[in-house]
């Protein structure tokens, strides 16, 4: 589902705005050294999870847009089972590169925030490709 709407949050030009709904089923684990262990070890304070869309367009070789994020604190269940989620943030392209774009990859990643120490960024294994249609959706009221 995609509309062409004026990007009122930024530059005053018409850019593509994408609407994506998604389900997330994930088990966040620590995959160090090929072994999968519980993610909240003694030095993990929280995880900052985010779903990002990555794609390329005529205008830009690489685009990344964070659609949704969630803070998972130590003590929360590292298993996610979310259905019918709408993106938290507007999926505006820098231009009109969403129309007809068949290759938008959604990946779930997370930033590990330790009690003290290194701040790694981890990308989950598994990703989803989302194709956008060739036409815009027009509605009378927005």
């Amino acid at each position: 589902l995609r509309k062409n709407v004026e990007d009122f949050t930024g530059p005053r030009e018409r850019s593509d705005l994408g609407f994506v709904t998604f389900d997330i089923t994930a088990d966040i684990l620590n995959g160090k050294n090929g072994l999968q262990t519980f993610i909240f070890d003694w030095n993990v304070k929280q995880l900052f999870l985010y779903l990002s869309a990555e794609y390329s367009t005529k205008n830009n070789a690489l685009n990344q847009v964070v659609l949704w994020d969630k803070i998972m604190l130590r003590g929360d269940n590292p298993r996610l089972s979310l259905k019918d989620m709408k993106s938290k943030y507007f999926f505006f392209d820098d231009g009109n590169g969403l129309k007809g774009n068949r290759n938008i990859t959604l990946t779930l990643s997370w930033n590990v925030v330790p009690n003290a120490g290194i701040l790694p960024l981890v990308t989950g294994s598994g990703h989803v490709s989302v194709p956008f249609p060739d036409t815009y959706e027009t509605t009378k009221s927005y």
Partner: protein
Amino acid sequence: GAAMDLFGDLRRMNKRQLYYQVLNFAMIVSSALMIWKGLIVITGSESPIVVVLSGSMEPAFHRGDLLFLTNFHDDPIRAGEIVVFKVEGRDIPIVHRVIKVHEKGNGNIKFLTKGDNNEVDDRGLYKEGQNWLEKKDVVGRARGFLPYVGMVTIIMNDYPKFKYALLAVMGAYVLLKRES
């Protein structure tokens, strides 16, 4: 008592000893500065260690936490990374997360940031008419973190008397310390 001993020490210290102590002190300061400069070179960042000043990245970082940065030229800027940037014309470094990236084939990159604890993105913080940040605005990327330790610098900033008192105590200690 102890006060009389202190005065005794001061009188007994002749000029040579005083110069020696001053040189010792200067050496310590120079070494510290060299380590700092070394860090700037190794990390590629003009400010390899920064103190978190606001609560806009809570609950991950709180005011007073310390962040360790790198700023390698070839490190790409990617969504989800925590960057420290300065808005053109302003001195205060801001620590927020990258939420949008648009990179051209030639490496030209523009990105948008937002504090985890903020409702809206940082466009309101950028310069008038500026909608994106560029590589040149980046001071570094947060690679490591230590809680609370930076509180000392915040206290020294907010209470200058504390800073002077601390410097006076440090100076007195170094000058009066006897090498046995």
